[in-house]
């Protein structure tokens, strides 16, 4: 969470601000890929068995563990549906994004 808050878009105003060789100076965390999705996963914690599989298979590290429960980070979730597909207790539903 802390990392996320520190990340921001980088604008160079002059050549003097550029590093000498092309190298990264910031994190992609500034890029909220949540904007990509049309459908989003919703976890029904009542039926969640805390197996960790949804967390394990998220390609975008958009499921984090908070107090022993999976929580979806909607800032980054791209809506791929892998968590819903792989959940053994089928407690994740993919729902339409509200406009």
């Amino acid at each position, binding site marked *: 969470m802390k990392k996320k808050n520190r*990340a921001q878009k*980088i604008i160079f105003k002059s050549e003097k601000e550029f590093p000498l060789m092309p190298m*990264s*100076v910031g994190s*992609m965390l*500034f*890029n909220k890929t949540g904007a990509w999705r049309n459908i989003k996963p919703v976890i029904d914690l009542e039926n969640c068995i805390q197996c960790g599989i949804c967390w*394990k298979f998220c390609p975008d590290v958009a499921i984090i563990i908070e107090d022993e429960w999976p929580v979806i980070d909607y800032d980054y979730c791209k809506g*791929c549906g892998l968590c819903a597909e792989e959940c053994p207790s089928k407690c994740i539903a993919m729902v339409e994004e509200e406009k």
Partner: protein
Amino acid sequence: MSKEKKMRLSLPEEELMNSGHMACQGCGATLAMRYVLKALGQKVALCIPACCWSVIDGPFPYSSLDVPIYHCAFETAAVSASGVKAGLEMVGDTETTVVAWAGDGGTFDIGIQALSGVAERNDDILYVCYDNEAYMNTGTQRSSATPYGAWTTTTPVKHFKNRPKKDMEAIMAAHRIPYIATASVGYPEDLFKKVKKAKDIQGTRFLHIYAPCPSGWKSRPEDTIKLARLVVQNAIFPLYEIEWGEKYTLNIKIKEKKPINDYLRIQGRFRHLKKEEVAFIQEEVDKKWERLLANVNGNQ
């Protein structure tokens, strides 16, 4: 929240890969990176040639990994890693694991010379090929890792890829390197174990990870893990290790091979295949499986 128990995670919780990266929805290559980094820890240096990951990581001036990356020239993944390893050793760092992280194009095709050179010299690097079975970064053109029967933009349906997938494990085994392994993002714990094992071996280690690509395979993003499991269960991509080019160990034993049709059906790139063509592929898969079993049982 009626239960008060702990989450049982099968992999370490710490992440070295961050969100915000540019991968497509359901990308297998990102999962491969995520698992490999969990097993290696932060003390790594990655050499990434032109491939999906050179874009996934994010453009200058950003990166989505908490480890150093050298975006190297396309053909040079393996030897750039050798150079980095030599350089780090000479400046006093003998601890950092140097990893060449390349796609199938940069491994099977344009990068094969450098890889062969590195393997022949047994340079001390971990070479990881994440295989999405075509030149995906440039829009799905065929590579020598594209399986028989697949559609790609350069093997359109009327001229689908009619040569078998290059047997990279056999090529690497011929170099007599200490460790070769196949892995799949559908079996993350197996992948994790193999990376941990490879980390502690000196010399050239080759890891071939099967990484489904919904964009290029025309499959649903949510099917990525299913595909990555089916491909092992039907023996198209069995999980095994080869030590010193001679000792074969099968990691996921298969009692009954699943028929390949379940796997082919859910990928648009195979949808054009006729019954006879599927039968031919099944035959080839069966033969290859028998050969592998012979190697495993004979250990020779």
